[in-house]
């Protein structure tokens, strides 16, 4: 398997998965990204990204128990695979390497 690089949105989605843990599903991922990064991402883009990541075997879905509040339907949750974790770690390392010594301060976030 060739070493795949991660796009920005892919990176954001995978990081959101880590943050959310067992609570990661479509809309919660969208909200998490918006809350933390300020990016208002379309839900369709989240789904498309998840599909791409699944193709690369970086994430895998699991179904929750049916929720009584939502008409008994299960939610499709997502978690990182070991392969995905490794890819994320290498992406973080390369990002850190690139940022090192630049002293970029984050701009104050727009809400």
């Amino acid at each position, binding site marked *: 398997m060739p070493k795949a690089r991660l796009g920005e949105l892919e990176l954001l989605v995978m990081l959101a998965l880590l943050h959310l843990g067992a609570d990661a599903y479509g809309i919660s991922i969208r909200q998490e990204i918006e809350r933390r990064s300020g990016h208002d991402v*379309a839900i369709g*883009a989240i789904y498309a990204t998840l599909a791409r990541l699944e193709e690369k075997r970086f994430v895998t879905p699991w179904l929750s128990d049916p929720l009584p509040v939502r008409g008994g339907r299960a939610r499709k949750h997502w978690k990182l695979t070991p392969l995905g974790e490794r890819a994320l770690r290498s992406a973080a390392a390369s990002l850190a390497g690139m940022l090192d010594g630049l002293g970029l301060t984050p701009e104050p976030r727009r809400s």
Partner: protein
Amino acid sequence: MNALPVAIRALLELVTPPTELPYLLDDLSEEFDARARTTTHPRATLWLYSQAIRSLGPLAMTRLRARRAERATLTSGDPMLTQLRDDLRYSLRVAARRPWLSLTIIATMVLGVGTTTAVFSIVDALLLRPLSFPGPEQLVRLTSPVPDAPSAMVVSVPDVTDLERTSRSIASLGLYDARTVTGQVSVEPERLSAVLAGQGFGETLALRPALGRLFQPDEYLETGPSPVILTHAFWASHFAGHRDVIGQSMIISGKPRTIVGVLPPLESAYPAGVYPSGDFDIWLPLVIPESSFLHDRVAMQLSAIARLRPGVTLERVNTELAAFARGLAVDYPRTNTNRTLQAVPLRDTIVGPVRPMLLLLAAAVGAVMLIACANLGSLLLAHSQSRVREFAVRSAMGAASSRIARQLLVENLGLATIGGVGGIWLANVLVKALVAVYPTQLPRVNEIGLDARVLLVALGATLLAGWLAGMPLARQVRRLDLSRDLRELERGLGSRHRRHVLDGLVVGQVATSVALLFAAGVLMRTFLDMTAIQPGFDARNVLTFDIAISPQRYPTPERQSAFYDALFDSLRTTPGVQDVGWGMFTPLAGGGWGDTFAREGTSDAAPNLPAMQVKMVSPTYASALRIPLLAGRSLARTDGTGSPDVALVNAALAARYYAGASPVGKRITFQQRTLEIVGVIGDVRSQSLWTPPSPEL
């Protein structure tokens, strides 16, 4: 939880893989609910739409990628398919490089395939497809042509009853009529078209009710129960298809009737006497009371259909009917002299009048299609000049000429297919427009539509056209001669062979154009003839409507008369209304009642009584329709019940039976009553524009 708007659902459904859709919708409505709680509803809705629209792109991309991956696994390694894919891709590039030529080809194809398909779908529904009754080829309509009303399709009740008893070729027959009645399902009364089905009518058509049953023998008796059968469409629209309608009752013409059955969904129009094609609502049993004048052989009022025994041909039944009619004429000379009986295939009686026009139209459209193909062929051939170099180079590099020919066919078929799809769309539009413009002139109108057969024909037409148009060029390429072609290209000449093909195309085109011109001329002529006929009355600013009053609420002639007088008085005083008249039949709609009469002071006696069509009208019928009064006076209101009986005759009757002398003041005997002719009015086309006026009273 708020339900998401339909538009959002529909949008997302387009691009989202079906397995993901429910999750996506759940997710969206979850955040939408949260937002609706914390901000305002409109803002939440705005967010929802922005989310949905921005989601379209990424989702569509995902889908495309998935499909492409699928296709890659499908086609890799298959040389035929890969080549075809290459051909297609190359064709697209070629088409894009010469957009005007491509658009011309597509537009020509759209027109050609569109008109061909539209006309075929009409021809198919009307002429080719059998009626949707079981065993349709054994169904005939019985008619009893008499001089003076050769096109009337009605029969007399005793004639048919005798026939049913003795006939060897007829398995079953049924009388029927059509009528408009007032029906009441819920609160509002409405006007319903009813088939009056005689005993054996439904059985002859071999109808199997979808629910319940057909009428039973005792229900045809005056004293029997009062049932009603619903047509499938009426059942669906008025009872929402509930299966428990059987046994319910509905009020028809003031009388409660029990619903005993629902007919199967039928594509074919019910064969009805008076209406060319009928969307009927209900069936009522045809009850003929003992005292009815219909039991007199003179009265020819009802229509009849019959089912022939298996194996009986039309010739055989008609021979038998002719012999039978001769027998009747001997037994009942007063009424049956000159009266014959005939069986006409049911389909012919339904589509008969439009058949020649349709065939002409089909031929014309076929010619248009051929011209279109010839045009495309010469267009492509002319254009190929610019591609000779390309072909020469390809073949020099080792491409087999068959490969190049196939490439060309793929190009043309590709364009033709695009055109064909457009053509099917156009056909759909055309057919809908035609049906909307001529709902009553076209019989079996509810059967017309695009179905698998029609689409197959469209597909065939498309492929044939693509192949025909591409053929000359492809043939030429097969005979590719590198050195000669390149040399001729240098000299700027087309090859001799190509010029031959071009000449052939031009000749073919001229020939088909001439044929088409003739066809168009004939069509035009027919149309002009049709519009040039004077109907005999002024249809401008005339409105018509039908009413039927309940015999229960208006039992006596006096009360009925009072009702009509009151109605017309109030209509006449309505602002904008100039004239009001009523009659049993409106002009051009057909209908009428044939009878004979005797001229006073002449030797008129059975069986040689003069015949005529009788219409009952109100005093103002003629003036409301602006039918000219030629002699004498018009009817007056005082001519009604209780005063001496008077009549108007039309010019045709005056000319036929009074040989130019004025009939005004003459007396005639008709149905044991003596009438005085008080006036002569102009002829009106009663049956249709094509039927010449016949003597009328």
